[in-house]
């Protein structure tokens, strides 16, 4: 008997080895059979929370890249969503099939790109924004600038790598707008010091404007496409000069947190403007 115990003691490591080997082979068999998810569930239960936290942390490092990808996707979606085209018929091909719409050339009226804000002021009388793209990136004067939530302003000045934007929060900024349900055209101006509020002018007094109505771009200026959100009506006041209403609007863009802007270029602006100069209005 003591011999047996002695034998067991001396060869304990062999027994242990055998047991552990059998154990690992059993686990192998279980994990490879794909029929028993129990083991996987157990190991998931132990390591899952740790791995989840870790991957969330690692995810933060790739947020910049992810953001960039999303912006690219947004631009692509904007292009797809926008169906402002200039349709030209290809006259050399119309002889073959007059009804076939494939032979018409469609050219985009608006083109989209994006930039990041590198400097901005919002609490002064003459505010401005500098963005990190310039003429070398295809940015030109009078391009429209919007944020993901609403209209921002118009490009006023361009250098090689940067551009200056006149936001709504500037006394010179005048954006042609329509009030949504009644489609009355007015002008959005900024005259205060509050970066959240602007005014809508030139709305006749007899019209009924409700609080909460949305104010959209009209598209008449050939800078902004039609129908971009500028803000919502906050307050309607009857002014002293009887013919027009004074309408306060809450701007859709949060200028405080502005960091990404989309730029919209009207590719035919020059052409349209050259026609306009033919009419001397004054």
């Amino acid at each position, binding site marked *: 008997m003591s011999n047996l115990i002695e034998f067991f003691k001396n060869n304990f490591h062999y027994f242990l080895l055998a047991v552990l080997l059998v154990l690992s082979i059993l686990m192998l068999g279980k994990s490879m059979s794909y029929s028993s998810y129990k083991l996987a569930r157990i190991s998931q239960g132990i390591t899952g929370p740790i791995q989840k936290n870790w991957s969330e942390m*690692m995810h933060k490092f790739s947020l910049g890249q992810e953001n960039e990808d999303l912006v690219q996707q947004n631009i692509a979606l904007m292009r797809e969503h926008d169906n402002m085209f200039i349709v030209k018929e290809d006259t050399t091909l119309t002889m073959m099939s007059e009804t076939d719409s494939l032979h018409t050339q469609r050219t985009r009226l608006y083109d989209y790109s994006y930039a990041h804000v590198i400097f901005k002021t919002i609490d002064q009388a003459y505010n401005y924004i500098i963005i990190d793209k310039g003429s070398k990136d295809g940015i030109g004067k009078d391009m429209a600038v919007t944020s993901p939530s609403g209209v921002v302003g118009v490009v006023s000045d361009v250098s090689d790598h940067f551009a200056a934007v006149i936001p709504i929060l500037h006394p010179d900024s005048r954006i042609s707008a329509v009030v949504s349900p009644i489609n009355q055209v007015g002008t959005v101006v900024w005259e205060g010091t509050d970066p959240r509020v602007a005014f809508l002018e030139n709305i006749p007094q007899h019209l009924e404007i409700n609080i909460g109505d949305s104010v959209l771009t009209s598209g008449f200026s050939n800078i902004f496409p039609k129908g971009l959100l500028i803000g919502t009506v906050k307050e309607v006041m009857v002014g002293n000069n009887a013919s027009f209403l004074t309408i306060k609007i809450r701007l859709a863009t949060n200028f405080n947190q502005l960091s990404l802007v989309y730029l919209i270029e009207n590719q035919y602006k020059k052409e349209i403007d050259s026609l306009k100069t033919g009419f001397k209005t004054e």
Partner: protein
Amino acid sequence: MNNVFSNILRFLIVVLLQIFVCSHINLFGFATPALYLFALLLLPFELPLSAQYLIGFLTGFVIDLFAHTLGVNSFACLVLMFVRPYLAKALNRGKSTEGVERPIPGVKDFKWLFAYTLTLSALHQFLVIMLETSSFVNFGHTMLVVLCNTVFTVFLLLCILYIFYPAQRKY
């Protein structure tokens, strides 16, 4: 006592590094180093064999838990711990092995260490990859992965060995 503590600390650091860093490395798309072998390779030879087996198994098990490949690393580490003393004995042939036996620079020469790490890493990687793929389809590619992993692991282990355990005395 100090020795025990340093061994435990080494295990902790190396296993954590393996789980959170090395397992996410994918050099050339597939080469992943097995850094945690470092702790196993440096385990004192004087330790009772049963303890060595148990440590090997548990280390593999922890790695398996995080990789969701239960059994793969446990098995490979167990085999590695089993082979290790015999390999050391074979490599020591013809030389006296008196004093403290540690597989570190200064005690062993480069040739010894290289053969030691290469053999054990190759064995370990072969087992792990074969068990993970568990098929002989695309055997050439499987072997390529084994080769790349082994080279990467050996390179890493030797670098760490020579950086953190610099030879103070030459025998």
